[in-house]
């Protein structure tokens, strides 16, 4: 065992409803509880003044799959974040929004979002509750204003009644919409891969090649793809040619030193999340490994990569075997996250 079984992360019923939300109903403490895997660190998202409950999670799930939230009612969040691809847009470099518009970066996989300090490849979004605003309102994605979305939801007797039951409010507000999304997104926790079992002491969970691969991973990849979330959520240049169209983290910080840096993605479910990198430039894991061995661009490359990380053919093979152990089949097939409408 790497971790004591009993490290209960219970923070208990420490709720202080601060005065600034006095106009909001104070939710009664839910019977249900939000739970996190014991081998994970403390989460970042704190649920604000809205303790997690299943009613809000259920609304968020429904919203995630509802095409009502795109301007022409043709796409939902799930159109570009599908479960079998770990909620990435399986196989697509960039995704298509309404009217055939294309976004400019690869749709990220969605899991363990409550542990992410920042969102998007450039970290421009700072709170899980604020994340849905971007795809909803972006003209290349769902292209709907928050007021239009709220108007549609408030015109639906079904949504009104669901929200009323969850929030004790007659009119659906932006906050109710975003909190419901955030609670569903928080519930999407991927923690049951063979790697997780091994991490918690079940040695048989990984075969010999995978165990060798894990050692190679820990010697070469771990400093950025830190365990157990498999990302440290930092921004780094990993040896890609930088296109003038996308300055990465610099777009947010305006700091020239951040040019071409993107957030380190988690490697969980990696076999399902191709293509890879912020622009989906690599179709296969082999191409990704090739870039770490022989970077396209070593100018200002992250020092953890340096001139490249050389691995033997056997090491590459072991490492790839290990990466397969990051697939969380329970998560990929969990009916709790599937389409509740159809």
């Amino acid at each position, binding site marked *: 065992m790497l971790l004591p079984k009993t490290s209960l992360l219970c923070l208990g019923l420490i709720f*202080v409803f601060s005065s600034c939300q006095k106009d909001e109903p104070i939710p009664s403490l839910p019977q249900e*509880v*939000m739970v996190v895997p014991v081998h994970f660190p403390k989460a970042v998202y704190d*649920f604000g003044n809205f303790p997690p409950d299943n009613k809000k999670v259920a609304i968020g799930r429904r919203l995630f799959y509802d095409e009502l939230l795109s301007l022409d009612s043709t796409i939902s969040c799930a159109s570009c974040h599908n479960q079998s691809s770990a909620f990435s847009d399986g196989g697509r470099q960039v995704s298509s929004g309404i009217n055939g518009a294309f976004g400019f970066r690869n749709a990220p996989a969605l899991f363990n979002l409550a542990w992410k300090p920042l969102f998007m490849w450039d970290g*421009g979004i700072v709170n899980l509750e604020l994340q849905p605003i971007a795809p909803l309102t972006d003209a290349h994605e769902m292209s709907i204003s928050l007021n239009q979305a709220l108007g549609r939801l408030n015109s639906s007797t079904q949504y009104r009644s669901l929200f009323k039951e969850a929030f004790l409010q007659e009119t659906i507000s932006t906050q109710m919409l975003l909190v419901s999304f955030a609670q569903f997104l928080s519930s999407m926790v991927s923690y049951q891969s063979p790697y997780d079992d091994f991490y918690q002491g079940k040695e048989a969970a990984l075969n010999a090649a995978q165990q060798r691969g894990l050692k190679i991973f820990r010697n070469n990849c771990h400093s950025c793809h830190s365990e157990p979330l498999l990302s440290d959520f930092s921004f780094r240049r990993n040896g890609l040619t930088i296109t003038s169209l996308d300055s990465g983290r610099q777009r*947010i910080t*305006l*700091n020239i030193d951040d040019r071409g840096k993107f957030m380190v993605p988690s490697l969980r479910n990696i076999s399902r999340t191709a293509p890879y990198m912020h622009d989906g430039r690599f179709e296969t894991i082999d191409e990704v490994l090739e870039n770490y061995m022989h970077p396209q661009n070593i100018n200002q490359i992250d020092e953890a990569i340096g001139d490249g990380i050389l691995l033997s053919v056997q090491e590459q093979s072991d490492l790839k075997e290990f990466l397969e152990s990051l697939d969380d089949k329970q998560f990929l097939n969990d009916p709790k996250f599937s389409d*509740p409408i159809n």
Partner: protein
Amino acid sequence: MSYTIFMNFNSKLFIALILGFSSILTSCKKDELPDPILPTQPANEIGMFKIEFEHLFNSANFTLNTAYTTSEGEEVTFTKLNYYISNIQLSKTDGTTWSEPESYHLVKLSDPISTLITINDVPKGQYNGMTFMIGVDSTRNVSGAQTGALDPANEMFWSWNNGYIFVKSEGTSPQSSSGNFEYHLGGFKNANGSNAIQNLNYNFGSSTLDIQPNAAPQIHMMVAVNHFFSHNGSTLKVADMSTLHMPGAMAVGIASRFSTGFMFDHIHN
């Protein structure tokens, strides 16, 4: 509809219960010391006041959809002018201050009612100064989904680079190559000189804001919108730059110049 989240208990994956993942409860606090939670004041100890913002352009009454000429000779017609006034604080001659709780106000010239801000539950007394921000304090720029004036549905929020748009001005100008101008000013980070928050400080001079039960004193502010384009030799020409949608030095420069147009005029008690 009923199901339970994460009920996948087993001995290896011992799962921790967690309610509200952390004790971080700072999301409603401002940068400065938190406001003390005061007991409710009795009605005979409190009053209210209003702040009226009257807008001018080169001394003429300013309204949307009217053409004005800047000092650089450009013609500008605003179709939208919205800005945040936040963190209003009153001060007395003895140095004590009173801060409005939850002090976030969105002034929209398209909505005349919003140009008259009403502030209730102020401890009675004579006040001789006021401070406020044009913009939104850094903490609220990075908090979760907000309500009221800070509701993102007010479209004063950048979805892709989180933070509030402190001042949103849009309109038309024949000097713009596109025919339009759009200046969205914001930015709260000190790094790279992109903090566009404007802290304004007024002394009422010989006037006093006298807060009493059953009184409705009013602070009259003049806003010289022409300062958006020029003041003291610093200028913005629509022909040079007609669109700005991001934080940074340009936004700070315009916000700073615009703030010089906010002038205390008088108080009616």
